[in-house]
């Protein structure tokens, strides 16, 4: 945990680990709580294993569904732990999602009243995003200048 970048939350939920696990891993159940009503959620892919795809979509009218989460599971320990990240998408392509890439770790453990449910979300460094964008900017700018120079040279030759 890095306090300025990460968040954690912990809650005792009066339900079994099995019930919570199925709420996370059964698409028809995940759809029921993943996004706030009245927005609808559609789970496109939920391949709950390391490297598996996690893709969800959103809709306001039940007709048009727009992209929501496109992520990849890193660790899956049956009934105990799920770790996924959106820093690489469901096709394992590195991405730079807004506001920042994150890795979410969900841990389930037994508690006398049900399940001790914990989440740690680790975020990328905002400065890293900026460095990446500045690099992109300068490359684009360089190409632009090059084209301008070529144009200027060809016109000068006329």
């Amino acid at each position: 945990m890095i306090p300025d970048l990460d968040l954690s939350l912990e809650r005792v939920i009066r339900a079994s680990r099995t019930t919570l696990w199925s709420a996370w891993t059964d698409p028809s159940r995940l759809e029921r709580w993943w996004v706030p009503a009245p927005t609808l959620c559609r789970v496109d892919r939920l391949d709950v294993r390391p490297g598996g795809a996690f893709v969800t979509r959103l809709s306001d009218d039940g007709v048009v569904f727009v992209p929501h989460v496109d992520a990849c599971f890193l660790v899956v320990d049956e009934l105990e732990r799920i770790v996924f990240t959106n820093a690489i998408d469901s096709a394992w392509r590195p991405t730079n999602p807004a506001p920042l890439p994150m890795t979410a770790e969900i841990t389930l453990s037994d508690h006398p009243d049900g399940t001790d449910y914990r989440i740690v979300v680790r975020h990328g460094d905002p400065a890293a995003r900026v460095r990446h964008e500045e690099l992109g900017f300068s490359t684009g700018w360089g190409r632009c200048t090059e084209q301008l120079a070529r144009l200027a040279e060809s016109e000068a030759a006329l």
Partner: protein
Amino acid sequence: MLQHEILSHVAQYSAQLDGLFVALADPTRRAVIRRLGRGPASVGDLAGEFPMTLPSFMKHVRTLESNGLIRTVKSGRVRTCVLNRERLALVDGWLAEQRRIWEERTDRLERFVTDPKESRQ
């Protein structure tokens, strides 16, 4: 409609954040922010603390000012820089926003798994 509003709000917020992160991505500019955290200072005094020419330093001041992280006020021949703490809070805001999303998501999960009607399904 709702979706549209949310997306345009997110786009606006995201553009503001990008500007702020660019402004904060430079060590000199971060040092200026830290220094101004202790109180307002004149451009002249600030510039004296950094090993660069005044014109180079002024570029950093203008970047900070154009992204709203600092305000400058000219009085006579002295330009004074003041930190805009509200703007800096926007940078902290993204983490609070993520926390809110995860808290609310956990509320919904909790309701879902503890609702007797749901568990029969």
